[in-house]
């Protein structure tokens, strides 16, 4: 029986790229949320025209 070979991370470069991309997405989400809260007072509410 062959022994199970434990996976070993071999490339920290791609992990860092993924982390960076994830951070960028999170920062974007945070920016959009803050912007929506400042401009509209809500984050997920959909405003409709009163006219």
């Amino acid at each position: 029986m062959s022994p199970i070979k434990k996976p070993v991370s071999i490339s920290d470069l791609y992990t860092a790229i993924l982390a960076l991309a994830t951070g960028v997405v999170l920062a974007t989400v945070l920016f959009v949320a803050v912007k929506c809260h400042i401009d509209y007072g809500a984050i997920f509410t959909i405003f409709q025209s009163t006219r």
Partner: protein
Amino acid sequence: MSTLTKVLIVLLSLFSFFLCGTVVTYVGNANSYKKLYETEKSAKDVALDEQASALRHYNEQVSVFEDLKKGLNDRIQLLEDEKSKLDADWRSAQRDSLKYQARADSWQGILTGFEQTIANLEQSLKTTQEQLDKVRKEDIQEQKEFNELTARLYETLVQLETLRADKRQLLEEKAALEEQIRGGAGGQAVASAKANVVTPKPSMAAPADAMPAPGDLKGLITEVGQSLVSVSIGSADGVAKGMVFHVTRGDAFVCDVVITDVDTNKAAGVLELKMQQPRIGDTVSTRL
């Protein structure tokens, strides 16, 4: 790690970078509609306030205009009434003017007639005055002739009286002589007859004194009645009843006064030929 996984990680990362950049750019450049809403809302409130203020101002102006309009209408009405009254007054004044003009024309005609009448009366007065002067001259002449005749009459009467006295004396002497002749007295008879004559021998008839010519008597009027006047001269000045005095004022003839009552220092008479009403102080004289 396979190569495919690595490629996918890289593509995913690139895509996420691109997408996040796009989203951030879009959201960052998007309009702030809340801010625009607030701005528009404040502008709307300001506009509403301005509209309310303008409406209030409009209402105030309308009220002022209505008051002014009412006042002007009242004033127009008053002016219309005054104009109507002035028109009526003007028409009345015009009628009065025409009436007075017609009356003035009428008076002008009457005045012309009066002037003609006065001229005729003056001419008539002049003629009458000339006739009166002529009659007065004739009257004076006749008065003179009458005085002369009266003097002759007095003279004749005196001569007649003298003759009567002579006749009576002669008759008495005749009666005495006849009585003595019958008694035979002789020569003493004549003397005794003359002694018995009682009728005095009248003096010789002499011509009577000439009647005093009416002198130029002058006086003043002292009293004036309705038809009687008193003058300041009387019998002491030679005034007699029936004398005619001429009353003058300056050079104007006023009237005549016929003396009816004479006192020592004054006389009274009635008015004749009255041209004007005599006044106290007018001159009276027997000659003009």
